[in-house]
């Protein structure tokens, strides 16, 4: 299975599917189509980086079950999904079934296969580039901090966000970040508590963590360092400095 694209359709020989495959192959992207309702999809267990779901005929239970199965596999294998829906209703169904973070493209028919192929290729290239990037998780209860950190870091790193201890732990297991930026002051479960939890967990023990704190007084600083974070960043530092420090961290 050396292909980069899997097209899942209710009928793998449908015109759109076949046209898509040939358009992709013209652009030197290998693609394969499977039919969602048949055995050939049921036996697939390894997905390529991008899956195109070609709609039409997904209104029966069997197909829906397969779609859900596809969604779970995509979540597990971090496969990205492109929708080609027949109409808005179907698009809505797709949206409801799939987690938004997996979806990179939403199209409603009619489509121009060559254009879609180009789009797919662009996404493939971007995914390739992003694979090698380090991933950073930012945890802060303030949406604005999350936004500003995302904007600051997303050009160089794959950034994921969380705004509480629960969402943070979920994000860590989902995204396996290379570095976590953790806010010290958070409601319910504080940053310090969260770090304790992280250090207690076998799989996360060695996760590098930087604290984000706007406190400058020595007491907090000391207590922060006691938990063996990689360091701490004052939120008041200018953002280029923050970026530089993160870059330096990764260069080590």
């Amino acid at each position, binding site marked *: 299975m050396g292909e980069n694209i899997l097209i899942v359709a209710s009928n793998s020989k449908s015109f759109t599917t076949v046209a898509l495959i040939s358009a992709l192959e013209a652009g030197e992207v290998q693609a394969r189509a499977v039919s969602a309702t048949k055995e050939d999809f049921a036996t697939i267990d390894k997905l390529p980086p991008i899956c195109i779901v070609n709609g039409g005929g997904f209104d029966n239970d069997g197909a829906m079950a397969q779609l859900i199965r596809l969604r779970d596999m995509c979540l597990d294998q971090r496969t990205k999904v492109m929708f080609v829906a027949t109409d*808005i*209703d179907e*698009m*809505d169904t797709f*949206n*409801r079934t*799939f*987690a*938004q*973070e997996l*979806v990179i493209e939403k199209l409603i028919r009619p489509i121009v296969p060559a254009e879609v192929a180009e789009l797919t290729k662009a996404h493939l290239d971007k995914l*390739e*580039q992003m694979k*090698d990037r380090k991933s950073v998780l930012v945890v802060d*209860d*303030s*949406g*604005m*901090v*999350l*936004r*500003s950190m*995302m*904007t*600051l870091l997303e050009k160089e790193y794959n950034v*994921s*966000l*969380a*705004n509480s201890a629960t*969402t943070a732990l979920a*994000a860590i297991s989902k995204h396996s970040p290379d570095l976590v930026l953790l806010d010290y*002051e*958070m*409601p319910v479960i504080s940053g310090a508590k969260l770090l304790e939890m992280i250090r207690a967990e076998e799989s996360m023990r060695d996760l590098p963590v930087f604290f984000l704190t*706007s406190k400058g007084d020595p007491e907090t600083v000391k207590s922060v360092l006691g938990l063996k974070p990689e360091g701490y960043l004052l*939120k*008041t*530092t*200018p*953002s*280029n400095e923050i*970026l530089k420090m993160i870059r330096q961290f990764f260069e080590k």
Partner: protein
Amino acid sequence: MNNYFKVAKYYSVLNHFIVGLIATIFTYFWQVPHPEIMLPFGCIWIIGYVILRAVKADEKAPKYLFCILYDAIYLAQVATISVLFQSDTLFYGLCVLVGVQSFLYFDKVVIYILLAFQMVALSIYAMLVVHPSIIGIIGFVVFFLIAGWLFVRYLDIFEKQANISKNHRQSLDDMLQLVDEKYEEASQATKAKSQFLANMSHEIRTPINAILGLNTMIMRESEEDSIKTYAQDIDGSSKTLLSLINDILDISKIESGKMEIIEQKYRLPSLLNDVINMISIKAEDKGLALQVDVEETLPSELIGDDVRIKQILINILNNAVKYTPKGSITLQIAGECEGSSARLKFAIADTGVGIKEEDMDKLFDSFSRIDEKRNHQIEGTGLGMSITTNLLALMNSELEVDSVYGEGSTFRFTLVQKIVNEAPIGDLKKRIKESKEKYTYKEKFIAPQAKVLVVDDNDINRQVFKGLLRPLQLQIEEADGGAKALALTENTKYDLIFLDHMMPEMDGIETLQRMRQQEEGKNQETYVVALTANAIGGAKEMYLEAGFQNYLSKPIDAAKLEDLLDEVLPAELKQKAQAGSKTEQAQSEKQEETIEFPLIEGVDWAAARLHLPDDEMILEIVKAFYYTVDDEADYLETMYQRLVTSQMDEEALSSYRIKVHAMKSTSYMFGAFPIAGMAATLEFAARDEDLDYILTTTPYFLVRWRAYKEKLKALVADGDASDKVEVTDKQEIVQKVHALQEAIEAFDMHAGDALMEELKGYAFSEEVEALLEEMAGAVMNFDADKVRSLGDEMISKL
């Protein structure tokens, strides 16, 4: 002619066999005279037949030998028959027959040979067996006459043939001579051209030096970003141009036989270091992995032409990078000791486009590129490979290529180098990292007290030179020729002198010699560096011999120049460069001031710019703040109310503290210092459990906090109501809302924002608009639960 040959062959072979058989049988069963002759002859026939059948006589076989063999058998047959019949007459008659049969070959040369052979054989036979009788002699004479007549008869044809062939040979000779002459001409022309190009090297490199140098100065001194960008493009193009020209000059040097391999001591780790650094940048840019697998036991100092080895490696690696769209490139070097030499095996593998079998030969052709259709987007002249193979040939090596089309290629070659220092090079990767670190910590210096003289007849070259040295703040004096230089060196002692080699009237070497000999001269001991555009092998030795301490080749590399100055200038003249120097500042990341922020009371945009890299982000933050103002305030108010009710509510106090802390951070971020300051005081109060302060100050704080919404409204324009689209398809909205809910749950900022923008573009009922407004805040905060509930509410009210 050959058909007759074949006919003759078959006829005679069959003939021989039958007669031979008969004769042998006769001999065996009858009493025949001279059995001692008969038997051997009979055997000759049979054996001869067998041989002739066994050996396939075709056009390539020695024709003449076969003819003679046939003839021998013929004669043996004739002799045997004559003996059998005891008749000399018969003998001679049959001889004539044999002679005539020779003409069946219709090849004059063959006929001639056969007749001659027959004469010899028959003479011997006659003398041995037949009595020399009158009849015999007459018979012989007759035979010779007939043969002679035939010979003469055909002589003219023979001669004509000979003439024709002579003519043929003559014209063939003439043609060969003509070809020789043309070849000489052509090779002379190539040589002359190559000679010309080699001499032009200086002429061609000088202006490029000017372009690169002046361009470097533009890049350093310009303050306008657009100009800097142009200059960067010029730099890239000039460097490409320089490398193309170097390739062409190299190939012409090779073709005119002037390329030499200059062997000298070199350090293997530095060579590999340079190569790897250069390629790793290119590989990284393309997203390719560069794997380096160098044996640690390789000796560290060797003798060889390191410049050319570097050239070969960089050529091959550049190609690997060029033709590999994704994947990796591996450089592998292994080595074996062979006495006092090391045999280094280089292998460069890539996961690139590969080369087809049939294209392998084209690989090494100058100027031809393979698979043009597929690879036409890749730059290059196609000379690299040709130069590489030629250089390897000069080093007694050759390039081996293995490739699978579509999967990748591996290039291999072996070099034998004498060892100078066997010490192993160790872990190269570590060394590379260390040297990288060392380099980044190099301190820039200035030397305002140092006096430097630069001598070059070319105005622009001097300008470039001065420009390159400007950051070091040296005192630079110039001279446009040897004469002026000598006038200066007589009176002033310089710390360093740069002398161009190629100058009219008095060249660099002569100037140097005269300088050293100046009686009153102050620069007999000064460190002098030669500047040359014609960097040929052996240059360093030549300049050292001429009295220079060092040389730099043009175009001058700014870094090398600085390194040299760092090395040569005495420490007391060097000072540390100030970090805040003008050039430093210009090079540091410049803030983009693209948005003009309106004057808003309580917001310090300049401070915001110190914290955030660009104005776009500041606007984003402001917008986010705007949408969350109320939410934050409401939450804080709730906590506040709880504290009003019960001052012992620890949970409320803790939540209050955390929230006001967050509000402090946020307002600080975009420069809203007054409110940030107030939030700070409230935070400390909460920490110190100063409830009095909290209870008195919070309402005022909340009022001022909420007031920011109005202040920022102008900046966060919502768009006119007229821009909004009517809702035609409810399902579309529902779909978007669902998508938004999913996006926020997944913390997908971009998807969420995009969907919010889309939803904002619709004209909804007042109720739904209000919900949407609230939703904006929840989206800003990534409050998934609120987004979900608001979203569901919105859908129900559509």
